[in-house]
């Protein structure tokens, strides 16, 4: 995988190009070969339950969706993608104040469809906060009639 530390500008450009990912303060940690790691800081604006201070499930799903899409884009031969369906299981509440990191892997792709799974952790890596699995469209370079 490419370490964005060696090419931080490319990684930053990737996030800057997606206005919503930028709005959520996402940071691309690693990407390449159908895998991606993206993190998001804790921010009081993203709280979903004011009585506990826990981040909204929706913010976690935005992180998961971005990370899954990035994994598909980094799959060899991929040119474009869009989410077809995404299921998220919420295993536990993320600890307020902690950064959330998502890891996604495109584990299989045909010329038209990419299958992805992902997990999200807070600073405790032993039990995920959430897991996801989804199907994404795949626009690949080998599509008929295209280079």
């Amino acid at each position, binding site marked *: 995988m490419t370490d964005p530390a060696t090419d931080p500008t490319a990684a930053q450009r990737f996030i800057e*190009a*997606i*206005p*919503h*990912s*930028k*709005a959520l303060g996402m940071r691309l940690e690693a990407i390449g070969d159908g895998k991606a790691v993206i993190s998001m800081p804790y921010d*009081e*604006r*993203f*709280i*979903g*339950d*004011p*009585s506990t201070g826990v*981040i*909204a*499930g*929706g*913010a976690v*799903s*935005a*992180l*998961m*969706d*971005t990370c899954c*899409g990035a994994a598909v884009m980094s799959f060899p031969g991929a040119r474009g993608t*869009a*989410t*077809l*369906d*995404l*299921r*998220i*299981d*919420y295993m536990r*509440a993320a600890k307020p104040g902690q950064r959330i990191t998502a890891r996604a892997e495109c584990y299989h792709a045909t010329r038209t469809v990419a299958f992805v799974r992902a997990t999200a952790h807070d600073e405790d890596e032993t039990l995920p906060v959430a897991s996801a699995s989804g199907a994404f469209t795949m626009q690949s370079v080998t599509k008929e009639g295209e280079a």
Partner: protein
Amino acid sequence: MSRPKPEPVQVVKERRDRALKTLVGGIPYVQFLGIQFDRRGDELTAVLPFDEKLIGNPFLPAIHGGVTSAFLEITAMIELSWSSLWEDMEKGTLDPRALDESHMPRLPKTIDFTVDYLRSGLPRDAYARARVNRSGRRYASVHVEAWQDNRSRLFAQATGHFLIPGKDPRP
């Protein structure tokens, strides 16, 4: 035999709007995305006014899939809370004047959420309505649909399972 005089319409409306406003207004992420709720009787329509920061693909441009998912999940969760609040208000067991940010019914917790993306979200306002298909003592199943220009052309739909909180107020 005489029936009690019905309450003035303004009093009823004010009570219901106040309960809805307290429920929705206390959630920072709802404010961050700019989601509003339109109420007609007990029916809620969530409205997501378009904003640049909601874009996921600037080349199309299209709304971020994560925004769509968050919009649907919030709509489902608010509908579920609202339907239980409504029941308690109608029975008279809950007085919305006693509700404030520190005295709200606890929000349901999402167990899982599955989004079906049907079309790309256009750079326009989006709307969503949720339906509680089953709500038991502990678990609820909620379906939610979102559209933009035409009610019959959905751009996304989702089903989610939620854990229903106990009846005691938030700690």
